[in-house]
């Protein structure tokens, strides 16, 4: 083994990819397309989940203090809320803290908050967690009656619907990608069959002079791997460019929609795509080699 064998295999697979140009192109584009569709759905799902997480933070009840409430009123109010039935946790959130959280939710679009930095418009408040969703309404009503409280906010149904949507989008994306992966395997298998056919003389002679099966398979394996990885890189490039473009566009025109930050999301997604591409390419080849190359 060693470098020599791989050198031969690399040279042969490069020649073969060029020789079967059109079929190689078809294989690369199907793999690319399958992975791009998967990536699109994953991106969509990630953003929906991000949005759901953002809204989930609001499932709990938020009670805002009157702007003129003194520290004493604040402490009394906190104790009063803690004493209510169903309440499990009460956290004080200062206006500075509230602004910081808002920044996190905005991710890359946090530039829009720079304007309000100087004169923070957010009030002090409490985050109230309850033991079960059914308690939310009762607790909220009770809190609202407390003297120090200006306003109470809570949301619930929206979040659950959003979570269900995220799940559906992710399942659909994976199903579609799986169907396309099957088509991809078919195309890879055909590409490899052509390659085997084009190189049948070489293969016969290799067997005759005593090349090992591993040696004979290696160039085909590399060819499939290369097709898969190139397809994945194409898909990664496409999703990278279009998502960047989307994030820039949305943060300009619709700054209040919370999007997943580009990094590390795109880097991770690309890594997943390349690994999947390699698996599809190499796996598809090994699968078809068994059929077309009886060594």
């Amino acid at each position: 083994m060693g470098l020599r064998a791989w050198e031969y295999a690399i040279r042969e697979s490069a020649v073969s990819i060029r020789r079967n140009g059109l079929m190689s192109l078809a294989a690369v584009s199907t793999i690319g397309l399958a992975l791009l569709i998967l990536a699109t759905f994953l991106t969509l799902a990630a953003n929906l989940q991000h949005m759901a997480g953002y809204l989930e933070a609001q499932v709990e009840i938020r009670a805002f203090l009157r702007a003129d409430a003194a520290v004493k009123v604040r402490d009394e109010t906190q104790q009063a809320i803690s004493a209510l039935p169903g309440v499990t946790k009460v956290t004080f959130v200062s206006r500075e803290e509230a602004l910081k959280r808002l920044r996190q939710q905005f991710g890359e679009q946090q530039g829009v908050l720079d304007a309000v930095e100087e004169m923070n418009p957010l009030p002090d408040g409490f985050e109230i967690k309850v033991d079960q969703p059914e308690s939310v309404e009762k607790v909220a009503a009770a809190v609202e009656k407390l003297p120090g409280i200006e306003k109470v906010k809570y949301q619930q149904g929206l979040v659950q619907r959003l979570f269900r949507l995220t799940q559906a989008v992710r399942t659909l994306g994976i199903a579609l990608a799986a169907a396309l992966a099957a088509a991809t395997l078919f195309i890879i298998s055909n590409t490899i069959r052509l390659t085997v056919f084009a190189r049948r003389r070489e293969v016969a002679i290799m067997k005759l002079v005593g090349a090992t099966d591993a040696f004979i398979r290696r160039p085909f394996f590399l060819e499939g791997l290369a097709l898969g990885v190139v397809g994945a890189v194409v898909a990664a490039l496409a999703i990278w460019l279009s998502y960047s473009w989307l994030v820039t566009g949305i943060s300009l025109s619709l700054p209040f929609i919370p999007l997943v930050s580009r990094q590390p999301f795109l880097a991770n997604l690309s890594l997943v795509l390349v690994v999947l591409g390699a698996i599809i390419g190499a796996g598809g080849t090994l699968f078809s080699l068994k059929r077309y190359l009886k060594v």
Partner: protein
Amino acid sequence: MVLMEHVSKVYSNKTVALLNVGLEIKKGEFVFVVGPSGAGKSTFIKLLIREDLPTQGRVVVNGQDLATLRPRQIPLLRRTIGVVFQDFRLLPNKTVYDNVAFAMEVVESPRRDIRKRVPAVLDLVGLRQKARAFPAELSGGEQQRVALARAIVNNPALVIADEPTGNLDHETSMGILNLLLEINRMGTTVIMATHARNLVNAAKKRVIALEKGRLVRDDEEASYEITRTAMTAGGRR
């Protein structure tokens, strides 16, 4: 070198290719295998290079019983055997040099050895000057010399030639035969399946004759046909 005991080969369509063949070929021998088309010569060779297994009997090559050979050991067996065919089987898109070097490359020989060994072998077959030519630019005889060079480049103990002169005229055929005899003189065992009566008669080597799958004759220093003298003088082994 080669031992066959009670070897029969029946194909799945009930064709009997070989029937109860027994023979021994010693190291350093030169043996012709003769017989009409369909006599079993090709099957005989396929069994030797373990392309096929006999339905009955034992084939031993280089001390190894081929029936007990595991699949991953087959390539190692074939590295000890050089094979030449009637249709040369050269790669048209590789030069003479690369065709011969290919046999060394695929068994993963060090590059230094390839650079030394290939020119030496091309010298032996008299094609040093044509090293950069492509097979299509060569005559049939020259192409067969390239194939021979490829067969011996890995120093096999046994060379098998399956109708190596089938596509060549008499003079060219004599050249190939002489080359095989030369290879044999250097210690390599040679088995040559052929129809070419004049070659067999010129070489005066051991002749094994097959007919309808049976071994019908096995004579030392024999000629192609069973002559009266051979019948009386040449004893069966």
